[in-house]
């Protein structure tokens, strides 16, 4: 089976998406001149800057989360390809306001190298950067190898709030590192998406199979199996997330049920019951639930479960006001 997409041509895709976002933002976003990057139009003069980004195909992540209280600019790579250093550097220059720049992005070889090169180039221009890589995917055993998946949502939210409030770049980075130490996710794939350039499915999965732990580019997970009842699947995924940190009795958490693309809110709500029942049993209290498409993988069917352990600091930053195409909370009209 091949993909079936409403696009014009793969070559024009990224500029066209960018134009679409710009128009949909009604002035809230501005293109960084000459770069595949969208920044907030109301970038304050005196702010620690937050640069996020990665390969495209995960919308609304990251561009949907650019705005007050969130990221200042999103750098958009080609589909599933980390952005290039020159695009990252342009974005960095565009939002730098003299107080340093925080890079937050998923822990993938491509992103790491391209952002690192950009950071070194920025350094030569006297722009100080710090980097916090998102690595919440418990499907990968070794901690340093972990991929960034839907936990990106909470980390960008927290980073945006911290960069608005922190005194120094190091302080802001420390908050996001603290968030990273407290966020864990696991995904499941139900059906593959397809790459616009090749039209090919990113993986093969039998009609009655799912794969637990599949990454957001179709990278392999931990187990392939027959489609189980939702409750069994939700229990297993919750257990994997809880055991990993581990989350403990008495913990308060935020819960994100992320649609990878073609799953339905209906399914997420069915799963939500079981996740909550498991957490209740474990004495873990859910303070906030986010559900919907936050970090997708093209039109992959599947979802992920993310838990963020909240302390006073993280609860504050997750709950603080923000405004963007993808999330608006606590801000007057």
């Amino acid at each position, binding site marked *: 089976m091949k993909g079936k997409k409403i696009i014009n041509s793969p070559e024009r895709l990224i500029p066209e998406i960018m134009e679409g976002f710009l128009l949909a933002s009604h002035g809230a976003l501005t293109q960084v001149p000459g770069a595949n990057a969208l920044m907030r139009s109301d970038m304050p003069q005196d702010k620690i800057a937050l640069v996020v980004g990665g390969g495209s195909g995960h919308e609304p992540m990251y561009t949907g989360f650019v705005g007050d209280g969130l990221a200042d600019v999103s750098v958009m790579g*080609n589909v599933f*390809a*980390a952005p*290039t*250093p020159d695009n990252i550097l342009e974005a960095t220059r565009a939002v730098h306001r003299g107080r340093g720049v925080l890079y937050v992005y998923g822990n993938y*070889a*491509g992103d790491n190298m391209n952002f690192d090169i950009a950071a070194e180039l920025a350094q030569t221009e006297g722009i100080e950067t710090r980097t916090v890589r998102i690595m919440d995917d418990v499907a990968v055993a070794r901690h340093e190898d972990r991929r960034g998946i839907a936990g990106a949502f909470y980390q960008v939210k927290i980073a945006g709030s911290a960069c608005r409030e922190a005194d120094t770049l190091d302080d802001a980075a420390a908050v996001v590192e603290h968030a990273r130490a407290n966020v864990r996710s696991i995904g499941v794939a139900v059906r593959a998406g397809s*790459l616009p350039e090749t039209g090919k499915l990113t993986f093969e999965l039998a009609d009655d199979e799912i794969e637990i732990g599949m990454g957001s580019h179709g*990278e392999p997970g931990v187990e392939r199996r027959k489609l189980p009842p939702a409750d069994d699947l939700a229990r297993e995924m919750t257990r994997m997330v809880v055991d990993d940190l581990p989350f403990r009795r008495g913990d308060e958490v935020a819960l994100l049920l992320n649609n990878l693309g073609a799953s339905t809110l209906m399914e997420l709500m069915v799963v939500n019951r079981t996740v909550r029942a498991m957490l209740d049993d474990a004495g873990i209290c859910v303070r906030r639930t986010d559900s919907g498409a936050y970090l997708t993988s093209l039109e992959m069917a599947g979802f992920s479960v993310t838990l963020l352990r909240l302390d006073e600091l993280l609860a504050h930053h997750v709950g603080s006001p923000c405004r963007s195409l993808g999330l608006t909370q606590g801000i007057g009209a």
Partner: protein
Amino acid sequence: MSTLQDVKARLQAGCAAIVAAEDRLTEADRMVGDGDHGVGMARGFRAAMQALDTKAAATVADLFRITGVAVLSTSGGASGAIFGTFFMSAAGSLKDDRIGNEAFVAALEQGLASVKSRGGAGEGQKTVIDALVPAIEHARQAGGDFQTMLEAAAEGARQGVEATRNMRGAAGKALPLGDRAIGHVDPGALSLMVFLTAFARPVADE
């Protein structure tokens, strides 16, 4: 020894070979990665061909740098950073308008060192490094002229690619596959082989 003109033609041939191999490279990445390797490589090396065509170069270093900058700023992904870094760094020592065997091997070694430090991967982790290392080895041990050495390098890369078939995934998007990556070659290594093989083909005089 090779002239500026000859190196430029060889680089062009290498770039063209990558562009032509797009589907094969992508297919290799579908097995162990996210299925976009050929797409990104073709994007970058098509840009490099254009840059080589249009930008002035006084030294071999200029040619390598032009190639590296184009790839780095156009490919994206892991391979964009790796191949971009490789060419830019290899350029470092080639300050002349010609290049001999020793300088070529030194350039490859410098490229390798930068790729290692940029990506943090070592040998045996099923990456481009595993094609690059035997390519350098074969080039260094090759007697004979520049052409003979290049052919040896290409053969080394070919053997390196084959060797990646038996490696588990340990870096990049193949990492989570671990043992399941065994049986498939590394796409980035394959790219290096494709490039070097075309680079090693003698350039017909016009």
